[in-house]
């Protein structure tokens, strides 16, 4: 990964927007990695949770917004539960998803028209509603 760090992007408005939306202080994180260690889907992520926070700390919002990571999170809140500094990565993840979904910056991970018929007829409603709300917006 080749990154260009610009001083004016370190704490720009969009990074502050992530902090406002998630109600988390990105600079609280000291990179211990417990969020990543406890995450049940970390092996499916392209950038692990603690790395996403690090990228945001150095102003690399696009890297975070374009990651697969934010779409495989199941909002199980284990990362938030284990953080010794009380940083809730789950909320940061939700903020990043919302930033993408509200502006339709990419195709939603779940399309209502493409949820399989088996799922609609077989899965608990809460699963279908939950997936559409978290991953479609």
């Amino acid at each position, binding site marked *: 990964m080749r990154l260009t760090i610009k001083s004016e992007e370190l704490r720009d408005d969009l990074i502050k927007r992530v902090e*406002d*939306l*998630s*109600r988390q202080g990105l600079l609280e994180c000291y990179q211990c990695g417990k969020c990543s260690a406890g995450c*049940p*889907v970390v092996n*499916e992520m392209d950038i692990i949770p603690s790395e996403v926070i690090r990228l945001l700390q150095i102003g690399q919002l696009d890297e975070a917004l374009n990651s697969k990571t934010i*779409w*495989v999170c*199941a*909002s*199980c*809140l*284990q990362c*938030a*539960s284990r953080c010794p500094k009380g940083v*809730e990565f*789950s*909320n940061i*993840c*939700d*903020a990043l998803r*919302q930033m993408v979904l509200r502006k339709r910056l990419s195709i939603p*991970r*779940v399309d209502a028209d493409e*949820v399989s018929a088996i*799922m609609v007829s*077989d*899965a*608990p*409603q*809460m*699963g*279908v*509603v*939950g*997936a*559409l*709300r*978290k*991953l479609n917006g």
Partner: protein
Amino acid sequence: MKIPYYPGCTLHERALDFDVSARECAKAVGVELEELPIWTCCGAVFPLVSDSVMEILAPVRNLSYAAREGDKVVTLCSFCYHVLKRANKVVRDDPEKMEKANLFLRADTDAREEIESYTKEDYEGQVDVLHYLEMLRDVVGYDEVKKKLRRTLDGLRVAPYYGCMLLRPKKEMEFDDPEQPSIFEEFLETLGCDVVDFAMKTECCGGFQIVADEDLAVQCSRNVVGSALKNDAEIIVTTCPLCRYNLDKKQHEMEKSVRGFKKIPVVYFTQLLGIALGIGGEHIDFSDNYVDPRPVLAEKSLL
């Protein structure tokens, strides 16, 4: 004793086995679960972003319906419990959001007043949200439950699966210790079960990701099932219809990907309670289970 009850969408339809067994068990321990006369979907997931008022409207509206019936509301589904409890906390702790939510509720009331004779009372967090397990422990009392049992489930090796939504985040859910919870174990001990501790009891089953990425969710649920099996559990109990779906029905997929995979039944805690209370027949229905729990229950002479 009558307690207002919020079933939620899934228990109203796809998890009737959970709803019916819970209502019957409540009767047997002296509680009449009174379904709210009006209720809607709670929204299933809680918004983790700070600016969302829209997403707490559904749960707050349901809480305002509950407020007309009493000072508490009981629910069973882990997602409903999670969403109602957190939305309730938002109303209690955030006056600005409470006011905004009530603006919507008042608009609702004005529009529908004539047909449904709504009261115009604001919702200010006056209802306590209780999980059915909390009702058994704190309102009825596990000792009272024990007195009502017709049989104990001796020798049945049961793994209590908590999942995520009951426990986390601890400071809002205030349900139990997120790493070492015990309410489920105490419940199962009350029934006389042999409680099996296992490492993955508070890990995620994959949740709603089952809709977006089945392989991802099955990988999660396989870890949970494997962990319970490793500790020689004979049956897994859960409080959540989505966990039940991912852990039970997806064993069909686990069989394909794990050589020599041993299946294990997954049931709702109210179904085991029902058996111990001597409730039978159509009220304890296992026809929706992919892995049939009846052979192991029969082996222990519990059917």
